[in-house]
C-alpha cells in the first residue's frame, strides 16, 4: 500500500462510477432484474424444447425435416404447378401454399372492389339501394363464415350432373363438377406476348410520369392514351403476330365421366372464394362508409364552390382523405381473409392447412407440420402488413 492510501481525505472516494454491491444501487438492481427475466425466459424455452424432444423420443415419434424429400403419395385435385402423387412432400406443400395464395390474392382483390361498391351504395340517396346494401351487410357479417362456406358448397353441389350440365354459351358448361370455360392451348408465343404486356404497362407508367412532370413545368397537358394504347395492346399483339400468331382453342368436351380440356373452376375453389369475398366485403363496406363519412361536409361544399363536378370531388377531394381512414382497418380485413381461407379444409379445397394436415398425419410429425402452417401464414400476413403500411405511409397527410 502506498502513502496516498493512508491519507484519510483520499479515502473519501470521488463520485462513484462503478457498481456498488448494494440493493440500493440502481444500476446493480437493473442488471439483477434483467439477468433474472432473461434467465427465466431462456430457461422456459430451453425446458419446452428439451421436454418436447425428450417426450418425442420416449414415444418413438420421428422428428426432423427428412420427410420433405420423401414421396408424398397424396392426390391433389387442383394445382397451379405440375404435380402428381409421386412428387415429394416439399412439392405437395408448395402446391398447398400456391393454392392458399390463389384464393387469398384473388379474394382480396374482389372483396375490395365489391366491398367498396356496397359501401358507396350504402350511402346512396336511393332509398332502395341503400336499404339493400344495409341488409346485405347486416345479414352476411352476422353469420359464421364456416356456415356460409358449407352453404355455398351445398348450393354448388346441387347443380346438375355433367351429362345434364347447363350450357349457356358454346364451350361454357356449368355442372356440379364446376365451371368449364374455353381456353387457348398455351404456347411459347403466348408467354412472350404476356411478357410484352407487362413491359408495355411498365413503359406506360414511366411515360405518364414524365408527361406529368412536363405538365407541371409548362402547364400544357399531354395526351397519354394514344401511346398507352400502342404499348399495352399493340406491343403484345405485335409480338404474338411476329411469332406466327399461333392460336388453337381448348374447348371443354364431355368425354367419359367428365369434361376434358378447357379451364376449370372447381366447386371447392368457387365456394371458398365466394364465401370469403361475400363475408369480407360486408366488413369492407362498413370501413369504406366510415371513411367517406369522416370527410367533413365542408370539403364537399368548398369543392362545389370551386365549381368542381361531383365525380371529380369524390376522386380528387374526398377519396384521398377518406383513404387515410380506410387503409389501416382494411389491412386487418385482408389479414382476416387470408387466415380465414384455412376454413377450406371443411369443403375440401386443398390449401396449405389441408395438405400440411395430411402430411403430418401420414408422417406423424405434427410439430413440423404445424410449424410449416405457422411459418406460411406468418410470411403471408407479414407481407400484407408491410405492403399496406408502406401504402399507408405514402398516402398519409404530408405535414409541412
Amino acid at each position, binding site marked *: 500500500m502506498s502513502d496516498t492510501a493512508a491519507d484519510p481525505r483520499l479515502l473519501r472516494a470521488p463520485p462513484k462510477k462503478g457498481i456498488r454491491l448494494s440493493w440500493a444501487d440502481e444500476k446493480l438492481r437493473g442488471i439483477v432484474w434483467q439477468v433474472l427475466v432473461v434467465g427465466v425466459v431462456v430457461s422456459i424455452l430451453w425446458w419446452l424444447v428439451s421436454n418436447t424432444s425428450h417426450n418425442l423420443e420416449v414415444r418413438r415419434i420421428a422428428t426432423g425435416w427428412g420427410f420433405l424429400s420423401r414421396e408424398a403419395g397424396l392426390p391433389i385435385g387442383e394445382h397451379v404447378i405440375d404435380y402428381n402423387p409421386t412428387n415429394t412432400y416439399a412439392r405437395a406443400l408448395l402446391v398447398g401454399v400456391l393454392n392458399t395464395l390463389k384464393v387469398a390474392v384473388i379474394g382480396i382483390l374482389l372483396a375490395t372492389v365489391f366491398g367498396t361498391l356496397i359501401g358507396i351504395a350504402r350511402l346512396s340517396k336511393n332509398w332502395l339501394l341503400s336499404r339493400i346494401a344495409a341488409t346485405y351487410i347486416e345479414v352476411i357479417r352476422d353469420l359464421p363464415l364456416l356456415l356460409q362456406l358449407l352453404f355455398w358448397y351445398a348450393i354448388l353441389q346441387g347443380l346438375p350432373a355433367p351429362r345434364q350440365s347447363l350450357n349457356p354459351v358454346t364451350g361454357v358448361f356449368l355442372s*356440379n363438377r364446376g365451371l368449364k370455360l374455353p381456353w387457348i392451348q398455351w404456347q411459347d408465343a403466348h408467354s412472350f406476348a404476356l411478357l410484352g404486356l407487362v413491359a408495355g404497362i411498365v413503359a406506360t407508367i414511366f411515360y405518364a410520369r414524365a408527361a406529368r412532370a412536363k405538365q407541371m413545368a409548362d402547364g400544357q397537358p399531354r395526351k397519354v392514351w394514344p401511346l398507352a394504347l400502342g404499348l399495352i395492346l399493340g406491343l403484345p399483339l405485335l409480338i404474338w403476330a411476329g411469332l406466327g400468331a399461333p392460336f388453337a382453342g381448348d374447348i371443354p368436351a364431355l368425354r367419359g365421366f367428365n369434361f376434358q380440356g378447357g379451364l376449370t373452376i372447381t366447386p371447392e375453389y368457387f365456394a371458398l372464394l365466394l364465401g370469403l369475398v361475400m363475408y369480407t366485403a360486408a366488413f369492407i363496406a362498413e370501413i369504406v362508409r366510415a371513411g367517406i363519412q369522416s370527410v367533413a361536409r365542408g370539403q364537399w361544399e368548398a369543392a362545389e364552390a370551386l365549381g368542381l363536378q361531383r365525380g371529380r370531388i369524390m376522386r380528387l377531394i374526398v377519396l384521398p382523405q377518406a383513404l387515410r381512414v380506410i387503409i389501416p382497418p382494411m389491412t386487418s380485413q385482408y389479414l382476416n381473409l387470408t387466415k380465414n381461407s384455412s376454413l377450406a379444409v371443411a369443403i375440401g379445397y386443398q390449401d396449405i392447412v389441408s395438405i400440411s394436415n395430411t402430411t403430418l398425419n401420414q408422417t406423424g410429425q405434427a410439430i413440423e407440420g404445424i410449424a410449416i402452417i405457422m411459418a406460411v401464414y406468418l410470411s403471408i400476413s407479414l407481407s400484407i402488413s408491410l405492403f399496406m403500411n408502406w401504402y399507408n405511409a405514402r398516402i398519409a397527410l404530408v405535414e409541412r
Partner: protein
Amino acid sequence: MTPMRLATLRTLGAAFLAGAVAAPAMAQQPAPAGGAAATMDAVKSRGTLSCGVNTGLAGFAQPDSQGRWTGFDVDYCRALAVALFNDQSKIRYVPTTAQGRFTALQSGEIDVLPRNTTATLSRDTSLGLDFPAVNFYDGQGFMVKASLGVSSAKELNGATVCVQPGTTTEQNLTDWARANSIQFTPVVIERLEELVSAYVAGRCDAYTTDVSGLAATRSAQPQPAEHVILPEVISKEPLGPAVRHGDQRWSDLVRWTHYLLVGAEEFGITSANVEQAAANDARPEVQRMLGKNGGLGAMLGVDDAWGVRVIKAIGNYGEMFDRHLKPIGIQRGPNAQWTQGGQQYAQPFR
C-alpha cells in the same frame, strides 16, 4: 464498444449462464403420461378409459338418438372398461377424425384407438404406435351409383373420386391408379359426413374407402340399392385398435381382450352361457380363460374373473359381429374363425 452495449452483453451472458444452470434441473422431470407402462396405471387411477372412436360410421362407431355410442369398435372400448372397472359407463368417448386420430393418441388424450385403423409399417414405427391385434380384416373398394353403369373399377379412368385425407385409402388409391394407368381427379374432404354428402350429391363419380366402410355408408342411404360396391378389392387393410408404442402392459391387455372375444366364440361361449360355462365347463382352456384356474387375469393386471365379466357384458366376437356388422350387410368372410376357414385366430390361453 460502448459501455452501454457492454453491459447488455454481460447481462445476456449471465442470463444464459443462469438458464443453463436452471434448465437441466427442470428438464429432469419425468415425461407426463409418456414412457413405458404408464397407461394402465394412469387409466386405473383416473377411473375412466379415454377411447378414441370414429366420428360416425354405421356399424363401427355411431352415437344413437340418446347420445350412447354403439358399434363394433365401441364394443372394444366397452370390453376394456369392463375388464378394468367392471363398469361400461366409465368410458370417455373421443370422436376422432382420420387426420386427428394419431395426434390424439400420441399426445395422451386417448388411451386406445379402436377406429378402423389400418396397421402399417410406418405407423408402427415412425408414428410411435403399436397395433396389438387385428379385429377386422378389410380391403379397399369403390362404390358408385348404379345409374353410372360401371361394373368394374378398371372402367373408372377419368373419374372424379371422393376420398378421405390422411388415410391409407388415399395412398392406396394413388398407387392403384398409377399401377393401372388410370387418371382420376380427387375430391379430398376430411369430415366423413361432408365427404359422403359430396358423393351422394354427385360431386364425385366414385367413393373409395374400406369395403366395410362402403357397406356401412351404403346401408345408411335412403335407397341403398342405388349404390353399387364394385368387385375389385385393391388393398389389404388389417384394421385394429392402436395404442402408444413402448407400453407393453397396456398393449398386452388390449391384445388379450381381443383374443378373449375371439377365443370365446371358438369355444362356443356366449353372453348367455358364460356363467354356466365358468362353473361347469370342464375344458381346461375354458377354465383358464374364464379364470377358474391359471391366474391369467392377474398376469394381465386385472383380476381373474375378467373373462366372465367381459363375455357376459359384451358377448363374444361372433355376437358383436352379428349385432353390428351383419345388419349392414357385411359378411364374415376373412373374419370368420380359423376353424371356419377365416383368419380370426385366438392365441392359446395358457
